[in-house]
């Protein structure tokens, strides 16, 4: 039917986007699903990670090879192409440094930016973050050292020294999915812990949580640090995959796309966030892969994608209001202790009846 459809290539491409977006969705779920903080500026932290990776890598490569040209000039881009894959150690080192710095810097920005707004209620937090995301994009659009509207390109892929591009992509998807696995593991562990219990308490009733001795502003700032840091890592992974970044990759629609994933998958469930991300990135990728083969030019895949996402959300919310994978109760060892107590008292009780 579709002779030029490369199934394995599709899986690799989908897997990479799934991994990146699932990290974003899990991090948003920690913020909004578990803690009840409406983060409408998720894209800002994603963008910070991506731009950090991009600028760090292009400036580092040019500096190491003593190229005087700026990375956004033609000479700079040519030099980046020439030296990009020359040293595996440099490429991998830049990648590792970007990941660490991406997490820390995006996390710190999230922490600092949101701390003063935490006391004024969830709507203000959401609007402040939304505005920050747009301000950041407009700043990048006009800031020459980061390429302004053209952005930065020639970001050296961490496996650029491997000659076979297919192998490179396959290795990269494993790295991305590895980061997703770590993110999901961490999110699941903190959800099912006394810390997760505090998060849900803050979501349910902030004032009551405060009255129970919980330092609510600190809890929220902590979650925003972690969530923003995770988004930063996703941005780093995106920058190295795309090999270029530009400001218009980070429009508010990206944030709402991530929200759609969380709503679709199930608010308050980390696995649900991954399921939501998988569905939406699947729709996105399959349209991108199929459309060229269909020869349709009237409707671009972009419009179709938004329509499909809209219909999916309406259907899910109508028939499964909790999402595809609804929130589950917290599982901590407390329940094991309760079960053994209940067993004891049952045995004791039946013994009493016999006597």
């Amino acid at each position, binding site marked *: 039917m579709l002779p030029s459809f490369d199934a394995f290539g599709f899986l690799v491409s989908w897997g990479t986007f799934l991994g990146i977006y699932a990290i974003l969705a899990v991090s948003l779920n920690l913020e909004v699903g578990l803690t009840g903080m409406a983060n409408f500026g998720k894209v800002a932290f994603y963008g910070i990670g991506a731009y950090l990776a991009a600028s760090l890598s292009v400036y580092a490569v040019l500096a190491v090879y003593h190229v005087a040209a700026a990375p956004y000039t033609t000479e700079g881009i040519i030099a980046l192409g020439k030296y990009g894959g020359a040293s595996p150690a440099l490429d991998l080192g830049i990648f590792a440094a970007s990941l660490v710095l991406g997490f820390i810097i995006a996390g710190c920005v999230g922490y600092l930016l949101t701390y003063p707004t935490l006391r004024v209620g969830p709507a203000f937090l959401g609007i402040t973050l939304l505005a920050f995301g747009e301000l950041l994009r407009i700043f990048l659009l006009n800031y020459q050292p980061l390429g302004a509207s053209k952005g930065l390109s020639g970001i050296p892929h961490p496996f650029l020294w491997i000659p076979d591009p297919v192998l490179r992509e396959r290795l990269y998807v494993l790295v991305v999915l590895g980061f997703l696995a770590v993110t999901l*593991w*961490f999110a699941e*562990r*903190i959800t099912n*812990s*006394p*810390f*997760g*219990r*505090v998060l*849900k*308490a803050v*979501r*349910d*009733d902030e*004032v*009551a*949580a*405060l*009255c*129970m*001795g*919980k*330092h*609510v502003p600190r809890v929220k700032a*902590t979650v925003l640090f*972690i969530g923003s840091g995770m988004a930063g890592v996703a941005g780093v992974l995106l920058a190295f995959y795309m090999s270029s970044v530009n400001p218009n990759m980070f429009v508010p629609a990206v944030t709402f796309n991530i929200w759609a994933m969380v709503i679709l998958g199930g608010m308050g469930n980390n696995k649900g966030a991954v399921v939501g991300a998988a569905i939406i990135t699947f729709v996105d990728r399959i349209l991108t892969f199929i459309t060229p083969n269909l020869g349709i030019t009237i409707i671009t895949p972009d419009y179709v994608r938004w329509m499909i996402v809209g219909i999916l959300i309406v259907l899910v919310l109508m028939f499964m209001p909790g999402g595809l994978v609804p*929130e589950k*109760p*917290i599982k*901590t*060892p*407390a*329940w*094991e*202790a*309760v079960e053994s*107590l209940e067993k004891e008292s049952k045995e004791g009780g039946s013994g009493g009846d016999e006597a």
Partner: protein
Amino acid sequence: MTKPILEVKDLAKYFGGVKALDGVTLEVPERGVIGLIGPNGSGKTTLFNVVTGFYVPTRGEVWYAGERIDGLNPNEVFLKGLVRTFQIPRLFPSLTVLENVLLTPPRQVGERVLTAPFRSKWEEQEKELARKAVALLRKFGLGEYVRARVSELSAAHMKMIETIRGLITDARVYLLDEPAAGVAYTTARELFTFIRRLRDEEGLTFFIIEHRLEVLMDFVDYVYVLHNGRLLSEGKPDEVMSDPKVIEAYIGR
């Protein structure tokens, strides 16, 4: 009376020109069950809000167990050992009854984000707290609700759990805002019997706002009456109830 555990000295709280509290001095003795009454708008809840750290007083001091606590945040006041409940019970609806109790103990190892992912670091503490919580719920006849969601409980049970969950900590003073509001007369009497039992068995201190005087007066040792942000009267229940100033404030001229 025994020595006071909670003392309020010349406490005032102004909201612009409104003097919600205007120089209130009172004390709550250890192991006392003390009432706080007054017409609507007399400043009772404002007093609770200042004592529990929601408001910074305009003037005056709050002392708890020999320590000055005014100006602390609500979470810090709780950590000192003061528990506050609300007129409408504020339990956490997405948590079970057990988890509502388990949330209370302060400074749990597993509540820190860096230790939370590593179960072995907090597993023992968590199990120990769970055993304590179950024992506590059973002791007060709520053992069957351990797994229940808060939404499945009656109002009276919610109010009981709001108080019981403080028992898992070493909190000693409970500020209850209208515990008998919204429950039937007999249930209200049961709740106050329960409060007396907690005082007798656990040595707790209660400071209670209540509008249902017919219930309150049978159970408290001492009553303070607020009116327009000032202390109007105080004394044993029958003394207060026969005070003409109190009758006038309640019934009006």
